């Protein structure tokens, strides 16, 4: 692409993160495209000490057996705090991506320690080699409970993980392009045997409750030869994961998921999109399965900046919730415990919108696209928008989301037309059609008795109509898209 404009930088930040302020977008634009992608993607270089200080002040996870300090809602509050306050948005975005990919729910795992550890694993290995991520997730306690690894024993193999690992985590049942089956039921059964005896234990629960150790129980592990994908050998589970991670079917499957999540929905009936998949699948295969190599290519591609990609995705509830705070300039105070004050507002409204973090509906994860919007979830989006727009700061120590008047006043212009344009820019930038612009201008110039009045920038207007304008823009269909 020829030049890296402000709108391009905003598009990149919405997709690789949750959006940002004009200042952040301008700074990103100044880095140029490759510099901006490098900055977001290679986030290890970015100082995140402000977030870490906030986390230290807002959470006490040192004694996970103290329920009020540590429970699944606290882990959610911790993750939302990260997403809202991080200087490394892509780190959290990829953690969210992998959470939906390796969808694991506390509803069955029923242990916040395991869920917390899996979240750390997803974050730590988010952009490394896919093989390493796959193995670590497979050996984490959360997955071993979630897909019944702990009851998978020699002689009576439980196929749950072996099946879902192939179907949902790596290749899919059928090849993304050729449509040919990637494996058979025999493969599922034989692969399940390689994972028999996989489990974990706590060496010292009382002193180190977060230190769990993966182990294979020799008494329930099947060491016999297995025939997998037509080859017979004494395979171990680790071998299988490496073999699967190296298959072209896996490369294609991952690229498809990356595109559907970060770029645009692919139409794999077209040769153009088939070629697109293979272009990036080849990068995966020739880069030693480097996730960051594939993503760097995708985020600097013509496809990513094409017209087809702009506002082609539906914001998921987390993007809606976190992004609305970041774009509007609202403050967020995580509080100190989830059940105190409004500390739970962000996560409980996200639940109501249909995305209960750490509790995806099933192993296939959350929907993408239009599936996020229905007549129930849409209303909850508008309620959250109203909450953000109209919640006025009371006491600086209060937990929750607040939109200060001075933030709004600074963005208010002297005319209604300019004010609408400026807030549409701030909350996107959103491309508004003339009808919605006219409706919003009319809103700003309508008094409570229905009469038309002049727009005047003053504290009263900011407190009344500007908060209403923010709410209205966040309710627009345009704002639901990413």
């Amino acid at each position, binding site marked *: 692409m020829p030049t890296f404009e402000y709108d391009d930088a905003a598009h990149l930040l919405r997709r690789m993160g949750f959006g940002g302020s004009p200042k952040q977008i301008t700074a990103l634009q100044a880095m140029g495209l490759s510099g901006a992608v490098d900055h977001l993607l290679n986030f290890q270089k970015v100082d995140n000490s402000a977030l870490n200080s906030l986390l230290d002040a807002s959470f006490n996870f040192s004694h996970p057996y103290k329920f009020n300090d540590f429970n699944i809602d606290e882990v959610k509050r911790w993750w939302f705090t990260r997403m809202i306050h991080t200087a490394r948005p892509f780190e959290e975005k990829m953690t969210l991506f992998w959470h939906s990919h390796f969808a694991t729910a506390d509803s069955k795992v029923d242990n916040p320690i395991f869920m917390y550890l899996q979240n750390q694993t997803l974050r730590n290995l988010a952009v490394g080699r896919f093989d390493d991520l796959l193995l670590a997730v497979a050996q984490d306690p959360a997955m071993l409970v979630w897909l019944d690894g702990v009851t998978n024993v020699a002689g009576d193999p439980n196929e749950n993980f072996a099946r879902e690992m192939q179907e949902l985590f790596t290749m899919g049942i059928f090849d993304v392009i050729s449509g040919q089956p990637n494996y058979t039921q025999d493969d599922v059964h034989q692969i399940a045997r390689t994972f028999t005896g996989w489990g974990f234990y706590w060496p010292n629960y009382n002193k180190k409750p977060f230190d769990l150790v993966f182990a294979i129980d020799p008494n329930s592990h099947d060491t016999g030869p297995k025939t997998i994908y037509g080859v017979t050998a004494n395979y171990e589970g680790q071998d299988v994961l490496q073999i699967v991670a190296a298959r072209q079917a896996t490369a294609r499957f991952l690229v498809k998921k990356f595109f559907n999540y970060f770029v645009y929905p692919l139409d794999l009936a077209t040769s153009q999109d088939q070629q697109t998949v293979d272009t990036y699948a080849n990068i995966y295969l020739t880069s030693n399965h480097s996730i960051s190599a594939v993503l760097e290519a995708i985020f600097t591609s013509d496809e990513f900046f094409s017209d087809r990609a702009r506002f082609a995705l539906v914001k998921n509830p987390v993007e809606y919730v976190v992004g609305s705070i970041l774009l509007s300039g609202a403050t967020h105070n995580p509080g100190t415990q989830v059940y105190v004050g409004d500390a739970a507002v962000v996560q409980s409204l996200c639940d109501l919108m249909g995305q209960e973090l750490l509790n995806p509906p099933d192993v296939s994860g959350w929907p993408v696209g239009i599936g996020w919007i229905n007549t129930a979830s849409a*209303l909850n989006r508008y309620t959250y928008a109203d909450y953000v727009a109209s919640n006025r700061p009371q006491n600086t120590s209060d937990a929750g989301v607040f939109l200060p008047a001075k933030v709004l006043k600074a963005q208010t212009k002297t005319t209604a037309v300019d004010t609408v344009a400026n807030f549409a820019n701030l909350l996107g930038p959103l491309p508004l059609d003339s009808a919605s612009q006219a409706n919003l201008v009319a809103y700003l110039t309508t008094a409570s008795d229905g009469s038309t009045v002049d727009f005047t920038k003053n504290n009263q207007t900011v407190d009344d109509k500007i908060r209403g304008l923010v709410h209205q823009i966040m309710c627009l269909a345009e704002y639901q898209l990413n």
Partner: protein
Amino acid sequence: MTLTRRQFIKTGMGSVAIGLVMPKLLLGGTRGGASGASGAGRKILVIVQLAGGNDGLNTVIPYTDPNYYQLRPNLGFPQAELVDANGQSTIITNQLGLHPSLSEIKSLYDQKKVAVVLGVGYQNPNLSHFLSEDIWETADPTGNSGEGWLGKYADIALAGATGLPAASVGGLLPKAMFSPNVVIPSIVDFGSYNFLTDPDHGDDSQDQLNTFLMNGGRNLTPGSLLQQVNQIGLNAVNNALLVQSSVAQYSSTITYPDDNPLAQAFLMLAQLLTTINELSVVYVSMGSFDHHSDEIDHNGNNPVRSTGQHATLLGWFSQAINLFLQDLGQHGLNNTLIMTWSEFGRRVQENTSFGTDHGTASPQFIIGNQVQGGTVYGTQPDLSNLDQYGNVQMTVDFRSIYSTILQKWLDVDSTEVLGTDNFTRDLGFLG
């Protein structure tokens, strides 16, 4: 009961829940014309979840079983205590009696409007609340399915319907109502099921709503993502306005006590059912049955069985059901079927905290004018033959209740919802 917006937001963490099944199509301006949706032919199904694991053995009490008293020296109700607050016996058979708080339920039982199904559970019981709930809600013994049993029913029977054929009230949508094709919204309370605007500027509220509706009414490229999102959002707000205007028509001589939260939830159901003609499946969840401690009151070490958390909840349940049925009856809605469920019962042996731990199968109630009531169905589990964890063995597959209702009340082939596994398809409580 008007919740403030702030309370609504906090309620998102869970508690009492009511849900609505709405079709994905826009609600039309005319409602109530759907065939069979109103008048004598209209059938209503009400699901009541007793969340947390209701103590079945202290709900339907085996007062002649010495094992019950041996394992529950404090919690076990002696026969002499099976008497309600009015001095009426709550004994229903020569072996079983209802908890004394279930006064109205006992009266309905005597009127043959209540059937008790004994020993309801599933094989290989899991004592996790969540997995057990998933199994009940999806009717999938593995708990791996993402679709609810009522959601599957909605897909079959309600996908093309107009109006509001189903609903849930109180909190998050129950998994039982998860459906890929029919949108079933959950209404926390009517105050928040609306297009909410800045509470500090109520005078701007109409202008806000008008602006939203203007934007929702824009002409956008048909079939585009933007147009689809815009249309669904407009439908959502129109649905909410419709519910608001419908429930505003409600009037009744029945008073639902403010201090009974379940009665307040049933009031919401009555407001919906009496004003929205096509509404046929509704859901409400009542929490706090997880009585690991202080299930009954006690003075020091002396048990006081007639009061306590469990007695309070069952009393609320009994009162709410009775008021709700009276209310619906006064509105001519006499074809109403209520079923209860709970993810599990509780351990037979009481613990040392005047409570009980997670258990397995438990009895459930089927209530309504058309129920072949005044009798028990299934077999009471044998308390001398417990499993390795000290829990009862199920005698009735929970899916048998579902299939009976699907076939005899909802008029669909139960295999379409529940598959072809082998269990009793008709328990007979609907004739």
